[in-house]
């Protein structure tokens, strides 16, 4: 019965029954009291199958480049599958636990740890993962030089509005981001920028500066939805109706290396984000609220 990652990649059809048998067996084991619930077992099995297909490990053939999973030994690959099943089973158990009034019965299922998968993972499913939360990723990103370069350029672009620039620099100082602040101020020494001793209405200047920073970052984005969002806000400003609505012709958006098809894809994505209410019309209608949200729309990609 044994199969390998290689088997799944190059001959999924023949090895699928063996994969299914293995995953099914492991799912039943990890699902504890839910092991006889066919729907729950299926959900676990199907999740892992979907993961393998999406990663290109199952059915990828020669057309999909090899992944580190293809380099695992058989024992390692089974360990990967085993853990993936365990994770999903725990996920299902947790969701079920939220649905039932008491989870005590799960604890009575047996004394073996394998029948109580939650026991060993209650405190931490992930162990010592480097980025368990988006906040930690943000932290890591903030420490990367690419981001700092981008921010530096956007902040320096504010020098035409010295008060706004000063407000942001004050903000950086307040946050204690001295390295970035030092880099920006050293660059500014070569310009005629001279900060004022005290800045009146700093919060107002700061708000304006944030707006410009967002536009700057939007303009530097290669994300299609972000580009279209920016154009909607820029090109639609002169067509305000009595009801504070903005209308923008798709043809106007399709300029400067952006085809009409690209624009439509971008509009669909913005609709999917819940920002637009667009149904393939030639004219895009925006409310004031939508326009405001578009100005703040940004996606890293």
């Amino acid at each position: 019965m044994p199969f390998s990652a290689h088997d799944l990649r190059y001959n999924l059809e023949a090895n699928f029954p063996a994969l299914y048998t293995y995953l099914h067996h492991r799912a039943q084991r990890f699902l504890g009291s839910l092991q006889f619930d066919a729907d729950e077992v299926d959900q676990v099995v199907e999740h892992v199958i979907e993961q393998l297909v999406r990663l290109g490990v199952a059915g990828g053939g020669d057309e999909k480049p090899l992944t580190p999973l293809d380099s695992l030994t058989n024992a390692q690959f089974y360990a990967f599958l085993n853990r993936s099943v365990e994770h999903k089973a725990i996920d299902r158990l947790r969701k079920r636990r939220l649905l039932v009034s008491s989870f005590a019965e799960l604890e009575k299922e047996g004394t073996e740890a394998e029948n109580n998968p939650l026991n060993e993972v209650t405190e931490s499913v992930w162990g010592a993962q480097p980025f368990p939360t988006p906040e930690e990723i943000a932290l890591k990103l903030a420490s990367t030089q690419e981001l700092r370069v981008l921010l530096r350029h956007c902040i320096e672009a504010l020098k035409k509005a010295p008060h706004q620039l000063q407000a942001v620099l004050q903000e950086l100082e307040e946050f204690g981001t001295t390295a970035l602040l030092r880099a920006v101020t050293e660059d500014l020494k070569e310009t005629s920028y001279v900060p004022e001793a005290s800045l009146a209405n700093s919060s107002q200047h700061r708000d304006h500066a944030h707006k410009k920073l967002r536009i700057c970052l939007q303009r530097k984005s290669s994300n299609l939805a972000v580009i279209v969002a920016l154009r909607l806000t820029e090109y639609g400003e002169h067509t305000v109706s009595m009801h504070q609505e903005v209308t923008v012709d798709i043809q106007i958006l399709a300029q400067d290396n952006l085809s009409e098809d690209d624009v439509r894809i971008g509009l669909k994505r913005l609709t999917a984000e819940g920002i637009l209410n667009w149904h393939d019309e030639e004219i895009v209608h925006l409310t004031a609220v939508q326009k405001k949200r578009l100005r703040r729309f940004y996606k890293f990609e």
Partner: protein
Amino acid sequence: MTDHQQFEDKSNPPGSPGEYERLAKWLKETLPVTTLLSENVSSSSDDEMEFEGLFDETYHLHFYQQLPDFVIALLKNDPLVNIRFAPLLYHLLICPDCHRAYLEIYDAMRVAVQADEIQPPVSQGLHFSVEPPPARVVVHLCKVLISQAEAVLRQAHRDHTNGDPLARSLLQQAMRISSRIAQNGVRGQALEDLVRVATLFNGAGVTDNPAAHSYSLQLTGSGGPRRGKTVRRAETFRHAGSPTEQPVIYLRDSHLEGTITQHEDSLELHLEDLDEHLRGHYVIITIPLGSLFEPVHWIGGNPHAIRSAVPVAEDGTLTTPLGETTLRMNNPEERNQLEVTFWRLEVRPA
């Protein structure tokens, strides 16, 4: 010296971890994270459901498939991981689905790479006799393969690359695997998106000339055809000269019916009641999935444009060969494969 290098020099020594934390906080306040909005998008309307099917915004193939490389780099303490995978890191920041997948894959790979070192090989579950997967799981696999093919094609279209070979391979696997499903209705569920994906982006069957007739495969089992219409059972289907015991594949376009029969290696198409404007003329027959199915040698070599061997008869009937194959329609599994190939068949004036 580049800006990149200049900044690196000027920030040397780099800021303290505390400073990064503060900068990260400022960044998160300045840049709204819009992905949270997408989690709350209602998909109740039909339009939105359709849209959701066309653009699965929760699955980002480009980033998802980088996760194993990213994770292994982390596990090996690659010092350049943040540089090499910066776009992925940005994406994980705002995409909860990919972030969830990252956590899962990290955890499983971490256990996997330690498997040989700290514990014996995981052998549990390897010594059981193989069980045939139930049809519902096979249906799911087919759907996932087709969905993956669509994601590959969309990504390739966006990147201006060629995703056809991989997508084609995935669709072919879905077709082959689905032939193991005995129940026609269930097989229909497994392949419901097959034609749409196979004809995505200038794919098979797309021509400027609109089809005069567009036939769909008639699956006579429970669940019926894709469009849910009542299907006349095989025994009652009328076809002049077709022996009842002869294996037949049934097609339907609205009120029109058609069949495909096999004579030794040859596959033959029979149509009736074709439009008057087609009568006395040759027609072009398009089999959109034909190019995905290699065991058939199509007449003329192109299943998207098979010219009929004879003109449509004055009574609207047409009998013409389509191609040759060594597969046999009286073999259930091979018949299933052939049926899938004829999931759709179009007829247009030559």
